[in-house]
């Protein structure tokens, strides 16, 4: 039997029983669509997290005071004891490393911000001018903190877009004064709207010079130090240098935790990839269910088409030809169902993108290959038994029954 004839024969069978064909297409389609939709959700979440980390800065090395022992803490949320403070002098010393491009020490606290009679409690961030470049921040109006000696207390601040509207309403905030605690600051810049990134909403903070924040919160200790390595390749060197410099300054104690953005990113990447794979696998169970449906329908078809199978045998069809006819039918159904499923899955993905534009839903390439391949393989596997039964039918018996 020629291949083209085989295809045509199977095609005519599919057209001859439209309800049955549609039912199987539907089952296969749902299975494939589920895999595509679910994996694109997982992949979307992964890309979202990766992008969030990316927006944190590039080639970032983060220094936290305190040594965190490797206990069962979640990666990325490292909380260490603080036997010795991390100071501004420690931070400035890091610039001695050749692998470090720039640093931004951070002090964080919450304080009441007053403008006239209005009061709002906001997170206050103390840092230096380099923070803007390290964190890829953007200023909408005015400018960022001035380049100056970080030990100097300057009465200037930069405020988030939301803070500006809440404190000033429609009035222009730039150049106005605000009061934090007992200190007054002139607003020199307003941040562009960036929304949340890794727990910090830059729309809702007030940024003041580091020394001012230290004075406000009456602390020498830094919350953390952001270090930008000169290039991706230099991240490892920067990390080693940072550890070594701090160790020397802290009398040989390795009492800081240094995390690289890469490492955290890789961990999240791994977790979310595994998650996507797992939910994709769960969705693939529906494909197995579709396979069982195919087997059931094919077994019924063998009974229904006994006479036809007997006739084909009488006309000289070999057992192999009968098997191939059934398997071709199954493959055609699987391909049709997979096509349908990919289309529906894509539609669902587009819908999700419309509803949640922030999350980059997209099916991973392996799911787009694995889902149709699984559909074809399961339907062939589940048709093997019915096809064999058909091929073994005794032609005399098959023909004798009406």
């Amino acid at each position, binding site marked *: *039997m020629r291949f083209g004839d085989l295809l045509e024969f199977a095609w005519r069978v599919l057209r001859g029983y439209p309800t049955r064909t549609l039912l199987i297409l539907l089952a296969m389609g749902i299975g494939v669509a589920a895999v595509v939709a679910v994996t694109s959700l997982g992949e979307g979440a992964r890309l979202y997290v990766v992008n969030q980390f990316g927006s944190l800065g590039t080639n970032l090395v983060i220094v936290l005071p305190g040594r965190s022992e490797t206990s069962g803490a979640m990666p990325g949320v490292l909380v260490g004891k603080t036997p010795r403070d991390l100071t501004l002098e420690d931070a400035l010393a890091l610039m001695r490393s050749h692998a470090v491009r720039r640093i931004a020490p951070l002090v964080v606290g919450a304080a009441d911000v007053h403008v006239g009679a209005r009061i709002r409690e906001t997170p206050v961030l103390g840092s230096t001018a380099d923070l803007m470049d390290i964190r890829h921040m953007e200023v909408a109006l005015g400018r960022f903190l001035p380049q100056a000696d970080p030990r100097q207390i300057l009465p200037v601040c930069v405020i988030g877009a939301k803070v500006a509207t809440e404190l000033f309403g429609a009035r222009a905030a730039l150049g106005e004064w605000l009061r934090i605690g007992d200190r007054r600051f002139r607003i020199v810049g307003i941040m562009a709207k960036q929304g949340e990134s890794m727990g910090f909403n830059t729309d809702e903070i007030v940024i003041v010079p580091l020394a001012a924040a230290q004075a406000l919160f009456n602390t020498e200790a830094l919350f953390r130090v952001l270090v930008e390595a000169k290039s991706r390749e230099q991240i490892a060197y920067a990390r080693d240098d940072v550890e070594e410099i701090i160790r020397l300054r802290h009398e040989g104690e390795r009492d800081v935790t240094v995390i690289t953005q890469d490492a955290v990113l890789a961990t999240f990447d791994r977790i979310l990839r595994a998650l996507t794979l797992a939910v994709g696998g769960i969705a693939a169970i529906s494909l197995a269910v579709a396979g069982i449906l195919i087997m059931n329908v094919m077994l019924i078809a063998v009974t229904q088409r006994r006479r036809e199978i007997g006739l084909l045998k009488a006309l*000289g069809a070999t057992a192999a030809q009968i098997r191939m006819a059934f398997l071709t039918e199954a493959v055609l159904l699987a391909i049709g169902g997979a096509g349908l499923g990919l289309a529906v899955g894509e539609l669902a993905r587009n819908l999700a993108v419309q509803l949640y534009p922030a999350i980059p839903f997209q099916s991973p390439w392996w799911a787009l290959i694995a889902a149709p391949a699984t559909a074809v393989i399961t339907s062939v596997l589940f048709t093997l038994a019915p096809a064999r039964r058909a091929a073994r039918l005794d*032609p005399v018996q098959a023909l004798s029954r009406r």
Partner: protein
Amino acid sequence: MIRLAGIDRTFVVGDEKVRALREVNLQIAPGEYLSIMGPSGSGKSTLLNVIGLLDRPDAGTYELDGGNVTALSDDELARARREKMGFVFQFFHLVPRLTAEQNIELPMVLAGIDPAERRQRLDRLLAEYGLEARARHRPDQLSGGQCQRVAIARAMAMGPSVILADEPTGNLDRHTGQEVMAVLERVHHGGGTVLLVTHDPEIGSRAHRRVRMVDGAVVADERS
């Protein structure tokens, strides 16, 4: 040339053993027109199935065109059926979803014959059996006589050496039955071997050689 020697065929039905064929010896020369008659259960259909290579005898030898076919494998039997046998059934056994033309084409499709060659043979067959106007009709749009003509054309598609007809008129009215017989006899006049199983004496007596079976054995074999 068909040569059957000591053919036995036993079926097991429940606990009982039914000997459908007992020691059947039969020689059929090419071009013969032979009818097998007998009461129902006499084994005439079983004999036809054995000759048509659909069924295997339990004992005895069957020589077809000089070769022993008793020892062939299933695939070899399928190939021999395809090349040498043409079946016509009481209930036509047309594939309902295929048109008349596609039904006639089926044996040639299974044999893997080139589409252009198939088309040529198909046109010839359609003309020969007067089915040109009905070529694209499905079986449910054809009369009984037309269906049986399609079945005969299908049986002839591969140019078989033997045509085996099992009650070909059993499902047709008298007049249409006569027409179908005329078509089968045309095959015989063209030089083909025609084997006919029937319980209708009027149809059976048209054959030149008449074999009578009772209880699985050949009891009479007369020629005219």
